[in-house]
């Protein structure tokens, strides 16, 4: 547990010691605010649905970008050899790095307090429950995309390749119930829909915390983290 904490602290300070965190947070805030203010005052609805629709789109490119360096850079510079010969398991290493990406996403979501505050000042009959579950959904979505991002980062030692693979995989999950569903035979439709991340996000954003959705998110996160750990361990395969 201590090892996860030390890796987490190192990665977070690495984010904030480089321009990465600031670029992410500033652009994330600007993009969200721009689309939010453009629409919010026109639709006369006292909710944050606009924000909850924009952020998953912003995530598509931002999360692979903040995750691309997590493992690829360590491999590229050779520091992976230093890290993995410290008394730490590959599992602790991956979880520590995953949590650091999640922390950055959490800080990014805190920046949307401005939109929440705007709603509180201007809206009426605000459904705080739905807003809470909406944020929970965004956080879980961020976790899913981060697990995919860190997996992509472990595939290659080139950060750009890791980014492209990350965006591709994230897009597959995002578009699964939009375009891929069109080409799938009817008997597989419900399965494909269950795999689509948007389907579960929409359920949670409505204010319903269903165990099926929570299980989905945690399964995908666990799957990609497990695959990342296996990929790291592959150096030890005989």
């Amino acid at each position, binding site marked *: 547990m*201590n*090892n996860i904490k*030390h*890796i987490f602290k*190192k990665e977070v*300070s*690495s984010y904030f*010691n*480089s321009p990465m965190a600031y670029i992410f947070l500033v652009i994330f805030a600007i993009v969200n605010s721009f689309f939010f203010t453009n629409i919010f005052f026109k639709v006369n609805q006292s909710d944050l649905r606009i924000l909850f629709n924009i952020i998953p789109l912003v995530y598509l490119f931002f999360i692979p970008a903040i995750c691309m360096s997590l493992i690829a850079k360590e491999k590229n*510079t*050779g*520091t*992976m*050899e*230093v890290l*993995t*010969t*410290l*008394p*730490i*398991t590959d599992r602790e290493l991956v979880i520590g790095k995953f949590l650091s990406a999640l922390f950055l996403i959490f800080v990014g979501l805190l920046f949307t307090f401005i939109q929440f505050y705007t709603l509180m000042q201007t809206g009426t009959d605000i459904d705080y429950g739905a807003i809470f579950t909406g944020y929970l959904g965004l956080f879980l979505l961020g976790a899913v995309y981060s697990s995919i991002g860190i997996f992509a980062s472990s595939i290659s030692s080139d950060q750009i390749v890791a980014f492209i693979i990350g965006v591709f995989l994230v897009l597959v999950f995002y578009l699964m119930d939009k375009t891929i569903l069109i080409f799938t035979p009817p008997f597989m439709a419900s399965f494909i829909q269950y795999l689509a991340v948007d389907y579960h996000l929409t359920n949670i954003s409505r204010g319903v915390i269903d165990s099926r959705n929570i299980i989905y998110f945690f399964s995908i996160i666990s799957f990609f983290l497990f695959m990342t750990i296996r990929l790291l361990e592959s*150096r*030890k*395969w*005989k």
Partner: protein
Amino acid sequence: MIRIDQLTKNYGSFQAVKSISFEVNDGEILGFLGSNGAGKSTTLKVMTGYLSPTAGNVYVNDLNIIEHPIEIQKHIGYLPELNPLYGDMVVYDILKFIASMRGISDKNFNNALDRVVSDCTLNSVVHKKVSECSKGFKQRIGLASAMIHDPEILILDEPVSGLDPNQIIEIRELIKRIGQEKIVIMSSHILQEIQATVDRIIIINEGTIVADGSPEKLVSGAQGLSKLELEISGPTIKEARMVEGSIDGLQIRDISRSKGIIKVLIEHNNTTDFRADIFKYAVDNDWILLKMNPVSENLEGIFRELTSSNHE
């Protein structure tokens, strides 16, 4: 104590290390020599738990690396080849991070920091970014990271590359000091450096051990022959050649004449000392012996001989 037991490591179909075995005892400094691709870095990587062996095992204090990698890694300090470092981090932060991963508490960190900063002479760069440091400093930062937890075993892959002669001497003294109580395993391409630092050398070639012993033993036992270099004034080349027939067991390897001085390279058996005989022979023939210098076979020659023989 480290015991390498029939260690084999394959990369796909390529066999990098072929069933090698050796032991290293406490208080021993072992030098690992081999040309590029000989398998020495691979062996070191398996010893540190970075790679798993294809066959065989590595035992550290009777624990094996396959079943107890974490326990073993706690006792090892490792400086990888090319010394990878976090360029965007401050030296202090790197050492603090490694120390925390090594389980050194905040309370004990300052003592550990003082020790490695003094040992590796890092005072002037502790609060600098790694990317702003010179290559020599980077090498010493890597060494400090490997030593921060005062490990029982120090594995150093090319520890002196990039250092200037003064720094090399400092690091050599440091390694010797550590090696009095602990195990130090180092690889180097600088043969003189290995010769000056280690108690024992293992030469590895194409994945197998081709020599194992103290530097002196390797040098003297390589051919069982010694060489003498002479410079004589007086005789002609033909006259000088006569010495070969006059002293039993002596052979002339090379002879040349330059500006009236004959230069002779003599080879003889280790068991006999011919110097007195040669001196007397020269006096008897009214030659002036300008120089008589024993030519010791150096490690470079041994290395070349051992690592090139398999190619022939």
